[in-house]
């Protein structure tokens, strides 16, 4: 795989699953899940 392809794959995964993880942690900090 080229460097560009690897970067975009990681970019996609990080933005979605990472973003969701941040949102879930915000909800958990409010003790509301």
């Amino acid at each position: 795989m080229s460097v560009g392809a690897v970067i975009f794959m990681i970019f996609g995964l990080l933005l979605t699953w990472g973003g969701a993880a941040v949102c879930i942690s915000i909800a958990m900090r409010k003790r509301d899940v």
Partner: protein
Amino acid sequence: MKRETWGSRAGFIMAAVGSAIGLGNIWRFPYMAFENGGGAFLIPYFFALVTAGIPILILEFSLGHKSKGSAPLTFAKLNKNWEWLGWWQVLISFVIAVYYVVIIGWAISYIGYSFTMAWGDDTTAFFVGEFLGLTDGPFQLGGFRGVIVATTVLAWLISFTVLYAGVKAGIEKANKIFMPLLIVILLIVMIRGITLPGAADGLEMLFKPDFSKILDGRVWVAAYGQIFFTLSIAFAIMITYSSYLPKKSDIINNAFMTGLLNCGFSILSGIAIFSILGYMMHTGGGELPGNLSGVFLAFATIPQAINQLPALQVVIGVLFFLSLTFAGLSSFISINEVLVSSFTDKLNLPRRKVVLWYTIIAGLVSLIFTTGAGLYVLDIADYFVNQFGVAMSGLIEVIVIGWMFKLVTLREHFEPISDFNVGKWWEFTVKFITPIILGITAIQNFYSNFTANYGGYAIGPTLAYGWAVAVGILIIGIILGKSKWKDASILEQTAEDV
């Protein structure tokens, strides 16, 4: 009548994500990305998520939460003159439900076929011939297909059982089972995929960025279309689901979670599908398989790939079609809930009675898609109800809510109860960005369909299964919008009352 509520916030998120994640995440997104710039497609895709997908999710979550009612009731509470818009969305859901269930039936059938790999060497011929019994044209029904009828009935029975049990004991519980299972199964299929020889070539095809494509306006319209159709917006589902939220519920963070988890699932699906396609190229002398999206990807190309696997063929076959079944069922249940909730509100009938009658009536209608002409009818109805139903009702929804009502009132409703604020960008996206993009899509759709028939079909089938359905549900929606509520006091109820 006291309105049911979700048992927990996690239950609502699971149900909303379960609704958004459907067959399109598995068989539409990967090909869209591949066709429209590979990794570079993710730029317009995420831009569309933030400027249209999540803002409309916030809009629909807050509408349902504020009105505590189904889509027709929500729009009727805003203004009785707009009730028809809610009914139009409900009828769009009905049309989608009656063909979507048959695809779930196909997936269930293929779980069984996976044990013996009954599709043989020519998977396309098996799918259209032996399995679908596809006739020569959309008007030649060719009789019912026994296996498809049986598995379609099974899908209806599952939906009936879940909906009959109610929101908390049925929908929430089902999604708490389906969603974790779906993710685990997808991960297993993905790991099998990326450990195959040639997988890296497939992922290279999917993620290699072609930046020239993002200068093309059509790619941006495609990205907005993909986001719009993947999030279950504009056909009343999210309004219905959020109407079961308790009074003190977050709106904004829930919308972000739903949107991000849905898109994250799409990317995992893309990795699974394209690593398998890469393996097929590896074993096929570098040639890309013919069908890379839609039903033929799932029911012809993937079985062909399973045939070529060096080991675990049955396991991967069963898991792949189980993932399609779970993804489909969670969306199907949400679509059916739209109708159940709407008629329960309108007719003031017990929920269980509505579930029973709805399942019988919709189940009978869905049988047309189990005939030898089912794939033709499904293809035409799906195209027209999406392009002229979902997209158009979405356009009207954002114009009506964005321009005829005070968006700030809605923002004042959801910001104080949410984990974080969105500010004025939300109003800007709902008022300007989404209507402009959906307006462009609508013009494109009308132009392309008035200059040529969809899919090369003759005028007769497109009129009967396409235009007649699209226009018919709009007319019936208007008629239902004019009809009386069995218990008119429901229109006066506020969130505090229910």
